[in-house]
């Protein structure tokens, strides 16, 4: 609990109704989609940038930790208030400020959800590419904070690639604007990149200007089934090697496919070792040609069947199944540890093979899924955290998976961020001076260390 005086000051800013500190509310903001949990002292739901700024002034003066949060769907513990203090929830700041068709950009408040932005721009014939699996609830502010990706990353990259400008509140309450609304902008140091992916440790992003594309005229999805997982991962490396750039190229192994079928009943075959789900978009003729080439590659690599989705509804079902993959893993076992180490795509077969071997070595059930087209693997270890002995094996396996990714020229995270869960592995990939530089940058922006303390910058 915060002191009475502090509470009074904060209530004056947001109103009593938007200041929460009942046991039930504090528990409700103690978690995100990762396994970590910590209870805050207060939860605030501000209504605008000015309120965020006023809150930060109070917090900075009094040295109260502040953890910004959207829908809390990140997978690395980024929004868990490790040191207590305030959880600053931006979900109610969810206005679409401007949708500009002529110049193809949109300005939203941080609490605007990704999917509702997708739907609004689609009505205008426009397209916002980043599509994290949690898009129906995850907020644009959260997407920026975590630099979120999604299946479409193969062709369209991650959130950072689509930000033209943003408004951020600094630790002491000052408000800055970075970037603008123009398609090109090389004015000054790229502050957008500084804040994007900073996981709320450097400032609180309250407004975001995103770049939009014309809606692609055509899209097509195909699925291919492989009796050997290896054939599926070789196919991925070959498709990318051929120069085709699919929108999405997803790989799922038997464990994942069976879990999805248990939940979604979309008719995926349960007995094949590897399934690829591929989408292309653009002009119809080009798409059809690409689908043909990919079909041939799949067959050459031993696919037992290749199917092209017949309708948009059919496609949507397939992708809905894929988006629910994290959740479905919890059907049989309570805890699902989902990692997202990423390797150069030519090393994907080795990464997947190695992951399966690590699973065997530690006698764990590991479901292998990957945004394969960009080398972003999602090994999912299903376990029960209450089983201490097994949990130890899980932790060992996770360490080995990260070491393997690094050995293969890869990195710890492709799109989920570092947060709490990958903090201890940072030295594997960043040397001491690089890590120190992050600490130094933070100390300039947040000298008292109140923004999301305890996370990866320490």
């Amino acid at each position, binding site marked *: 609990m915060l002191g009475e005086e502090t509470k009074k000051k904060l209530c004056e800013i947001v109103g009593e109704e938007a200041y929460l500190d009942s046991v039930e*509310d504090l528990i409700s903001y103690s978690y995100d989609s990762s396994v970590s949990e910590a209870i805050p002292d207060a939860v605030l739901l501000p209504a605008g940038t000015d309120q965020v700024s006023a809150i930060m002034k109070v917090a900075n003066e009094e040295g109260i930790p502040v953890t910004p949060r959207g829908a809390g769907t990140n997978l690395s513990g980024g929004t868990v208030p490790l040191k207590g203090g305030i959880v600053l929830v931006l979900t109610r700041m969810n206005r679409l400020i401007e949708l500009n068709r002529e110049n193809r950009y949109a300005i939203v408040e941080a609490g605007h959800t990704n999917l509702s932005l997708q739907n609004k721009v689609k009505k205008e014939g426009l397209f916002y590419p980043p599509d994290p699996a949690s898009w129906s609830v995850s907020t644009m502010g959260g997407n920026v904070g975590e630099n979120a990706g999604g299946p479409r990353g193969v062709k369209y990259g991650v959130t950072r690639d689509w930000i033209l400008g943003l408004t951020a509140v600094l630790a002491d309450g000052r408000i800055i604007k970075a970037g603008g609304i123009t398609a090109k902008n090389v004015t000054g140091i790229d502050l957008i990149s500084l804040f994007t992916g900073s996981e709320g440790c450097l400032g609180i992003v309250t407004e975001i200007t995103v770049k939009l594309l014309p809606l692609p005229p055509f899209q097509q999805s195909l699925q291919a089934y492989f009796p050997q997982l290896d054939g599926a991962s070789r196919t991925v490396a070959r498709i990318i090697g051929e120069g085709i750039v699919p929108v999405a190229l997803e790989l799922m192994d038997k464990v994942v496919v069976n879990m999805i079928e248990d*939940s*979604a009943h979309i008719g995926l075959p349960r007995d094949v070792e590897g399934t690829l789900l591929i989408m292309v978009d653009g002009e119809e003729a080009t798409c059809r040609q690409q689908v043909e080439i990919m079909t041939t590659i799949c067959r050459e690599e031993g696919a037992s069947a290749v199917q092209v989705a017949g309708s948009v509804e059919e496609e949507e079902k397939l992708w809905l199944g894929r988006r629910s*993959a994290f959740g*479905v893993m*919890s059907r049989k076992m309570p805890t699902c540890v989902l990692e997202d180490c990423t390797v150069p795509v030519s090393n994907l077969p080795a990464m997947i093979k190695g992951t399966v071997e690590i699973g065997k070595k530690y006698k764990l059930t590991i479901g292998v899924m990957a945004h394969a087209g960009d080398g972003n693997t999602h090994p999912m270890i299903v376990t029960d955290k209450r089983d201490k002995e097994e949990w130890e094996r899980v932790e060992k396996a996770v360490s080995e998976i990260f070491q393997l990714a690094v050995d293969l020229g890869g990195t710890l995270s492709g799109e989920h961020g570092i947060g709490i869960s990958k903090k201890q592995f940072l030295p594997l990939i960043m040397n001491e001076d690089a890590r120190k530089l992050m600490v130094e940058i933070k100390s300039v922006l947040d000298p008292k260390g109140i923004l999301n303390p305890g996370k990866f910058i320490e």
Partner: protein
Amino acid sequence: MKEKKSLLSDVTNEHVYHCAKCGLCLDACPVYREMLMESHSPRGKVQLAKHIIEGDTELTEHMHDILFSSCLLCGSCVAACPSGVRQDALFSGLRWRAAERYGLGFAKKLFFQVLARGWLMSTSAWFGKWVRKIFGGPWIESKMKAGNLPIDGIPPMNPKPFNDEFPEIVRPEGTVNAHVLYFHGCATNYVFGDVGKAVVSVLTRMGVQVEIPKKQSCCGLPIFLSGDRKTALACIREVVGMFSRKDVDAIIVDCATCGSALRNEYVHILKELRDLGEGVDDDLVKSAEYLADKTMDVSEFIDAHRDWLPVFRPFDGDKIRVTYHDPCHLVKGQKVGVQPRRLLKLLPAVEFVEMEEADRCCGGGGEYQIEYGDMSARITNRKVENVLKTGAGIVATGCPGCTITIGAHLAKDNVRTVHTVQLIKMAMDESGPGKSPTM
């Protein structure tokens, strides 16, 4: 503080551990979408349940309020959950415990006791007077606001209970294709007599012998969901005893909530009470399982036997634009959504249009709209907007609760809300041959 005895059965407790906290239920939840607060989300309540089960916190009065005020028990989260968590079982279980500890509101208690013993009412007039009062008369206005329901839009009571209007067995003319039991529920009995008449009329003209057991009880689900398990169990025993019969082809239900109770909830509730040692035996569970297998929504039954329908005469006048609202307890609870649409598209005078978010909750949630009027109104407004956007003159649906909520709000816009089966009856009447049975 720690809870001394276990509040839920082990099976139900285990559900909290299967929540991956992925958050996909948030968007599915009509209350979260309005409040945008985690404690009002299904994920939030599951995590709160975990803390209560593990003894970090107790079932407080505030938790009681959260369970009742921020949940319509519409089942949208259950349908959306990839991990297979039964949030409904968790929340209704905790509601029961919360109601035991902190009590039900006076109005609610009376409402449910009367629902449960509806068949004891000798004259429906008394019941009607009472229901109008409970649904928004002056008493309710003075005590707990008028709720979300526009009082003028509430339909009047049946002049006499539907059940009294028919003999126990209504036979079709000619060949008998099937023999069904008709569970008409309280709403048809006391308010929507016309729906019941349409069900009997359509089914008999399809060659179906309809048996309408006398003195049938409330399904018990609204009572159960409100947390009053004891009264609910009395209802469940009655219904299972009366309807779990091996000599019929199906048990037909016209109410989404009743259907959901008979098909999904009874077995679940009974097993939970058996496991908690609350005096439920295996035989009762088995009978309930049999009943669950045999129960069908009326639209589902008619659709499955479309070949028994008469050929409709082509219609060349101005068609009526009709849209369809998916009741939560039908589309999420029973996976019935395609069937009513297919039937509506069969009707010659109907121009079917889909509304946006057809499967979003209407915000009614039974007594929810009376006690939590503001929240309910926000959810209902969204539904009303979506209906009006279609330009439809009629909303078809399959739930008396939704009919009351949507109907009351659309009355001023001259949009009528009816049960799908009423439109089928109208089409049959237009097309002749085959008459309604004696009325």
